[in-house]
Structure formats: structure tokens, C-alpha cells
């Protein structure tokens, strides 16, 4: 691990690549409806030694919960690996009467957060293929 090893390279995406990426929900993440319009995501904790110890000592679940609002739930349910971020943004814009750019920005920001938390994986098709 950096600084003792090589720093892992995070691929940088341009706008077109980011919008054409296909988000897929991590198979270990479970979605639960919260009875209203939102949803609850059950996300597995990272399997590190510290996490395992903390969970055992404090009798915590190996999953933690993330509560999503109505829009978050709407977007997450469209992450099937088939639809692109652009298509999801379009659906969001249509359903909530948002402008195209408004929808694209908010969807991209939401996915950035989900990717950082390893809830969603983005499938990026190579431009050469």
C-alpha cells in the first residue's frame, strides 16, 4: 500500500465515458423498501480484521444500512447493468420534470458516492471496441 508500495491508479473518466457507463449494484447489497417512497440499502461491511473484531465485540450486524430518499430509490432500482447513466438520468428527468443537465449532474454525483462506497460498479465500454 502507498507509500510503501505503488499507489493504485483510479481511471479518470471524461464526461462522455461517465454518462455511457452502465451501473450495476454489487450483488451483496440488498434493497429493502421502507414502506414509504424511499428505500434502505443493506451494505456489507468491509471484511477487515478491525471490522470483524468491532462487530464481534459490540454484537453488530455484518451489514450496515443506508437510507435513500425517493429519488435515490428511483435511481437505484434502475441500476440493472443494462441502462447507462445517461438513460437513467433521462428517466429521472422525465419522472420528476427536471432539466437534462440538472438530472445528469445529480445522477452523476449520486453514482460517484455509490462507487466510492463500493455499492455500485460502473461498467465502462472501451471506446476502441
Amino acid at each position: 500500500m502507498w507509500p510503501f508500495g505503488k499507489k493504485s491508479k483510479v481511471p479518470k473518466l471524461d464526461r462522455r465515458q461517465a454518462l455511457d457507463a452502465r451501473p450495476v449494484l454489487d450483488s451483496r447489497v440488498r434493497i429493502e423498501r421502507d414502506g414509504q417512497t424511499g428505500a434502505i440499502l443493506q451494505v456489507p461491511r468491509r471484511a477487515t480484521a478491525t471490522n470483524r473484531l468491532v462487530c464481534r465485540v459490540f454484537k453488530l450486524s455484518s451489514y450496515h444500512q443506508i437510507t435513500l430518499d425517493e429519488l435515490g430509490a428511483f435511481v437505484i432500482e434502475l441500476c440493472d447493468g443494462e441502462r447507462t447513466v445517461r438513460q437513467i438520468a433521462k428517466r429521472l428527468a422525465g419522472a420528476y420534470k427536471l432539466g437534462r443537465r440538472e438530472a445528469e449532474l445529480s445522477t452523476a454525483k449520486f453514482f460517484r458516492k455509490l462507487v466510492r462506497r463500493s455499492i455500485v460498479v460502473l461498467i465502462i465500454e472501451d471506446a476502441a471496441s
Partner: protein
Amino acid sequence: MGSEQSSTRGPRYRTFAWQGVQLTLPTDWNLTVTRGDRKAGYLRLSDEYRTRLEVRWQQGKRQGLLSRTVDGYIEKLRKDARKEKVSFSVQRGLKLASPPGKEVECYRWTGRQQALAMLSWCPHCRRTTHLHLLGEPEESLKNLARTVFSSFRDHCEGADELWAFYDMRFRAPAGWPLKRHSLKAGLIRMSFGGRGRSLEFIRVSLAGTLLAAKSLAEWFGEFYGKPLKRKSFRISEQTVKGHDGLMLRGETSLFFNPLKVFGRRRVLRAACWHCEPKNRLMICALDAFGRQSELFESVLAEFDCCERSLTDVAFREKK
């Protein structure tokens, strides 16, 4: 709403206006970057896939002939192309547009991408503006460039200045500079004014979600609570621009505005309405001394949210 169908088949156009720069652009081009102020600034507009238009302006003394400015700019581009080992070609003296009362030079350069550009100098507002319409090297841009460049205006003619971007369109008094702006997804806030006066135009998206658990008055109280502090005000529910809305009139209390004793009253006037067809909440607020607060009606009348607001204005004018 400021958009019109072009006569031939092709893109739909609408008016774009920012800091006095006014252009007719395809409807799917959106503002993506904005920097600077009235004196000097930069704008970038993009469509769904790429940057389509860049605008740079600078106000002040004219710096030599336009052709020399173009020479310098092209030389810089040529150097960059040489570094990147890309072929570069230039075509000067194109006749793409001749906006009235302006000196212009139009040219085309092709490198990694293609650009049709227009450099303009306006002796009236002393503004030098450089427009770059960008596209792929093999793309045909000439007709589009003609439409865009010939619609170019760099100063307002009347007492009000038009601002039109995204789906927002309003007029601010010409002497009131843009003080602050926030262009977030879901919230657009434009504040004009200066010492002792302020005019705000606000657009909030997802109105249905925001008003699901509270009334418009409750939401307005929470959202616009800060400017209402230290003020005594009266809110009335009424139809605003054809929609359910609120009208507010308030005054700063005597303790915070002692000049009130001498008749210098600071008045806050605001309107907030729920535009159902667009699912948006709109706020127009003017906080100013005495007579300036009378501008409110005219400013509000020019703040459009949807077609219904336009018919409401037309109806009022007929009456």
C-alpha cells in the same frame, strides 16, 4: 418560453442571455461553465455530448486591430497543434455574420476539432467578444454558425437586461450588477444589486417532493427564513402568474433601520409560486429602499416559469 421552432427541419432554437451577451442557440445546448463578471468573463455551453460554444469577453479600451488579435490567437493555436503533432489549417475572412454597429472578423480553424469563430468589437459598450462554435473536423457548421453569430448582441437596448439560461428567463434592471449566483442541480439562485438593494430570482426543482409533507407557506418560511429575520411582514395567499402562490410585503423594524423615521423605508417584496406544469418553485424578491421597491411588479411580470405564466401576463395586459 423564449423558444421558437425554426422554419426548416433542424434544431429548435431559443434565446440565451448572460451578462449582456445574447444569442440564439439550439435548445439542447446548456450552460456548463461561467466565470467572470460584466467587465471580463467566459462562458461555455455544451450539448449532450460535447462543448459546442465558448464565449470570452472583455470590456475596456480597444487593443489594436481585430485582425491582429486573431493573428495572435491563431499563432498560439498553431503552436499547440505543432506540439500535439496535429495538422492545423485556418481560413480567414469568412462572411458568416455582420451584426449591426459592430466590427467583426469571422474565421475557421481545424485541428483536433473544428471551430468557426467570430471576434467582435462594439464601440457602444466597448466590449471585445470572441465566440467559438466547436464541432468535429468533418461536421458542417456553417449554417449553424450563421444563425448563432447573426443573433449575437452584447448589450441591452432598454432599461432592463435579459437573462435567459436553462429554462429560466427574466429581466433585471440594467444598472444592477450580478452580485452572486448559484447554479446547482435543483437550485438556481441569481442575486443582483449592490449597496442597500437586492433583487433575487430563485428556481427550485422537485416541487412535488418538497411540498409532499408541507404547505407552500411552510416551505417558503423555511427556505427564505434568513432574509425575513428582523422584519415585520405580511403574507397573503393568492394566484401568482396563473399558479398557486404567496405574496409577501415586509419592512425592516425601526431598531435595525432607524432611517425609517426620516421616511427612508426599506421594503422587502417577494412572490413565491408553485409551477405545477414544470414541477418547480419560483421566488422573486426585491429588497430595496423607498421608490426602488416599485420596480417589483415589472420585474415579476418578466419572470417566466412556463407557458401559463406568459398567458397570465398577456391576459393582464389586455385587461
